[in-house]
């Protein structure tokens, strides 16, 4: 295995072309364990962290541009970012320990294409876009469209994600992310639920709900979104009927598997619980946001 | 001579007897006498057991002295973690 650390996007694309058995990486927090577990080593590993654009974070004209290899620790430490997207910041901050946080990135979390990735549901409800480099130039794709199955993405050979674009939410909006893990840290989500919503006074004006770890890909839950829209927040709580509908819709949207981390039954049940709790938190935050 | 207490596993050799008076001056002699009376029991007591004498657990105690007042229990070997 050879290691290369290009400093420009073009150089990285050139390296990718140079060897069909090459692979880009940022934190390697999934890659190295996978190699240790017996997955074949690529012949050429391309470290993207030396490319400035991939580790840069900026906020211009209402849009956040986040380099795909930016350590998630840098995002959670960014007070402006975390105040704007508390749920996305929480989700990013849940990817492993502090040690992992200094390596893990949105790009890696997304392209590893595990349906349990914590940042992805939160990116999806924030309608994030990925900017993708390839041999025919740059293109963009909705984050929701990147993962197509466990370990599979819509990226072609020779492509990699340069950065993510996330627009500032409208006024009176916020988000929340919750996940269930058996421990309090150092674990992979058994279920993850992200909610982003916008309030009009006490009433939910629009909502997005996405789930992780409950199906081969990330799941949007339109029925839960529909249940939320038009509901109202009284004394900091959504009414029981709305929460029950959100929970039922989230449970129904699951298509989980039994595995070492949880059962089908458990995932279904807890997806509903986390979706309604995240909705409640997001609504409270949105109302508090000015 | 000492009083020997046997476990249920041992009693298949003794026709169900649980408590026996056994001749001998040491634990080893007690075992020899028990083997003479109940062939097959001896190895079980030697290989598979520590001995508790008057409440104190003694490992490998075959040369421990006993007398009429001694209560001997053969217990399973214990190691630990």
């Amino acid at each position, binding site marked *: *295995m*050879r*290691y290369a*650390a290009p400093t420009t996007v073009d150089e990285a694309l050139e390296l990718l072309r140079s060897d069909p058995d090459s692979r880009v990486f940022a*934190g*390697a*927090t999934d890659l*190295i*364990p996978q190699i*240790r577990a017996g997955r074949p*080593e690529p012949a050429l*590993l391309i*470290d993207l*962290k030396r490319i400035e654009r991939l580790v840069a974070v900026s906020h211009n004209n209402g849009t956040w541009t986040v380099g795909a290899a930016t*350590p998630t*620790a840098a995002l959670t430490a960014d007070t402006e970012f975390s105040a704007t997207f508390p749920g996305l910041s929480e989700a990013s901050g849940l990817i*492993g*320990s*502090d*040690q*992992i946080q*200094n*390596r893990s990135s949105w790009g890696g979390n997304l392209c590893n294409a595990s349906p349990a990735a914590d940042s992805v549901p939160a990116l999806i409800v924030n309608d994030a876009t990925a900017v993708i480099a390839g041999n025919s130039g740059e293109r963009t794709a909705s984050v929701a469209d990147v993962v197509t199955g466990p370990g599979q993405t819509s990226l072609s050979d020779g492509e990699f994600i340069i950065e993510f674009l996330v627009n500032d939410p409208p006024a009176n909006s916020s988000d929340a992310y919750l996940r269930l893990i058996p421990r*309090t*840290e*150092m674990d992979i989500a058994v279920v993850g639920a992200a909610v982003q919503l916008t309030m009009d006074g006490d009433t939910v004006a629009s909502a997005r709900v996405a789930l992780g770890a409950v199906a081969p890909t990330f799941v949007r839950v339109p029925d839960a979104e529909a249940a939320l829209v038009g509901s109202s927040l009284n004394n900091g709580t959504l009414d029981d009927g709305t929460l029950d509908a959100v929970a039922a819709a989230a449970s129904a949207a699951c298509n989980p598997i039994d595995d070492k981390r949880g059962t089908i039954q458990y995932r279904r049940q807890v997806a509903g619980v986390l979706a309604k709790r995240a909705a409640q938190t997001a609504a409270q935050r949105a109302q508090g946001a000015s | 001579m000492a009083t020997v207490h046997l476990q249920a596993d041992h009693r298949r050799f003794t026709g169900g007897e649980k408590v026996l008076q056994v001749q001998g001056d040491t634990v080893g002699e007690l075992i020899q006498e028990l083997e003479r009376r109940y062939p097959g029991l001896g190895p079980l007591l030697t290989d598979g057991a520590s001995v508790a004498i008057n409440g104190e657990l003694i490992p490998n105690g075959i040369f421990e002295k006993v007398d009429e007042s001694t209560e001997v229990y053969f217990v399973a070997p214990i190691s630990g973690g």
Partner: protein
Amino acid sequence: MPRTHVNCTVNGDEVDFLSADDTSLLNALRDELGLIGAKEGCGTGDCGACTILVDGRVNCACLMFAPEAEGTSITTVEGIAQGDHLHPLQQTFLEGAALQCGVCTPGFLVSAKALLDENSNPTETEIRFALAGNLCRCTGYDKIIRAVQEAAVQVNGASK
């Protein structure tokens, strides 16, 4: 096997070494530089026994390829004392019996140092989450948490 020439700073010293490209930074530190303080407990970033600081931030050395260290400044447990003057954490770990077998101790010290460097007055909960990437199987963490709390008091006392 291609080998890369890596230049970096380790515990304040400029060093260079040759490393196979698929060698972990942990193995390079241990085998090329003789710094055996960082341990491999899992090799997958799940136990924190190999925790080091890279440019001041905690990392699992087992999850880095050695060539990634190029140009970085690395601190290992061997570098947290000032000469023969122990870091307050080393002192409170010793005095507070915060180690038993000691194999996780280097990783804990480095993680705790990173915490105190950033937040010299952490709550118990903050300490517990900052150290959640470090497994200890002997102590039940109790005395480790207390040693970090005590070191924080000393660090604050010293800075006032």
